């Protein structure tokens, strides 16, 4: 567990180290709309940059432009709509069952529990 914490702390430390040059210099290279962005915006995105720094580092190295909203988005919108529906058909009953089971099976519940 200590190793896990060490890896997590190292990842975040690297993220913060990366975030400082990224929000000052790098951001304008991957997104021209951020070139003249105020400091408050740069600080606002800092936690996300520190968390997702490998993705942004790759974009910065490749000087890749922002991906476009694909026109097959419709299909993905339709898929998303179906996904929400199907997900709740499963998620609601599953969570409700889990809740009932966890309350019913808790120690001290049932006949004679308080006797």
């Amino acid at each position, binding site marked *: 567990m200590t190793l896990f914490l060490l890896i997590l702390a190292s990842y975040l430390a690297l993220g913060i180290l990366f975030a400082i040059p990224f929000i000052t210099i790098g951001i304008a290279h991957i997104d021209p709309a951020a070139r003249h962005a105020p400091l*408050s915006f740069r600080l606002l995105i800092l936690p996300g940059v520190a968390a997702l720094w490998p993705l942004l580092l790759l974009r910065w190295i490749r000087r890749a432009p922002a991906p476009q909203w694909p026109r097959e988005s419709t299909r993905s919108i339709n898929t998303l709509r179906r996904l929400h529906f199907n997900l709740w058909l499963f998620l609601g009953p599953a969570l409700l069952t889990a*809740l009932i089971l966890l309350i019913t099976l808790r120690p001290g519940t049932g006949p004679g529990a308080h006797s």
Partner: protein
Amino acid sequence: MSVAYKSVQWNAHKKRYDLILTASIALFLISFIAISALTHRAPTAISAPILLLRATAVAALILLHLILAIGPLARLSPLFAPLLYNRRHLGVTMFLLALLHAILSLAYYGLFGPINPFSALLAYNTNISSISAFPFELLGLAALLILFLMAATSHDFWLKNLSPAIWKSLHLGVYLAYALVILHVALGILQSERNLLYPALLALGIITLSTLHILAGRRERTRDNHAPPPIDWLDVGSIDDIPESRAKTICIKDRERVAIFKHEGRFTAVSNTCAHQGGPLGEGKIINGCITCPWHGYQYLPSNGQSPPPFTEKLPTYQLRVEGRRILLNPQALPPGTDTEPANA
């Protein structure tokens, strides 16, 4: 809209929204603590840190339910669309409340022990086969990490730079976070709290959310199932069906939905999917000559689907013609931003 980023694009609506939100949360926290303190007097009195810890947890849980309910509510009735407009501020506020709850828990239970509180949180309890002693804190921590990623990437900068597909997938993590939170509560406080009102309220929350999502999803599914195939010119209804400055949404089998707008007595058609977050443009209206998305206010010119300068977003457009009092639509989408001649009634 994407010209130059700002931390928050404030307007009167957002300020009012945030003011009401902050006041409501402050009122809730004060009321919760006051009522709990009054109803739990010695010898069962609850200490102040525990009261604050519980108050932040309950506030975050209620907000999470509200956030998850807004989407289907807005689909079922346009009356709820104003709540959707600034939902990201609700999400970030909910994360901050959950974070405060986590910090208070960590400080109260772990700070004065001999072990590093993070190590203690992750390693001290391995009773995963026990219901009453399950390390429920880990479920809360996992949910918090998901909520952090969502809050940290809630700005439009992330939507654009992660790509909408990745951003949407990341933000679908809210359902996993919701499940983790429910289990965190059921395996945590509800194992020791004997009042059945609390599990009943939690069950009511789950049932309400499921019902809303299923009802909204079923309505959309019914519309999709009755959609005509994309052949030739489709008769999509009468010119009298569409009020001035409003739209009618048309479903076409396996295709993008189309929003047909009436503006100054003439008809134009664009994709129903907003280029920002996929909002349903057909449920919006024309404001100052622009189609305005009901979700976040993105705007497009009706004749060519382009955002007015200096903005750069574009939508596919469609050809229309009016015969008698009927509107005919060519279901083949034109490239985004293509000029079309509005159809006259």
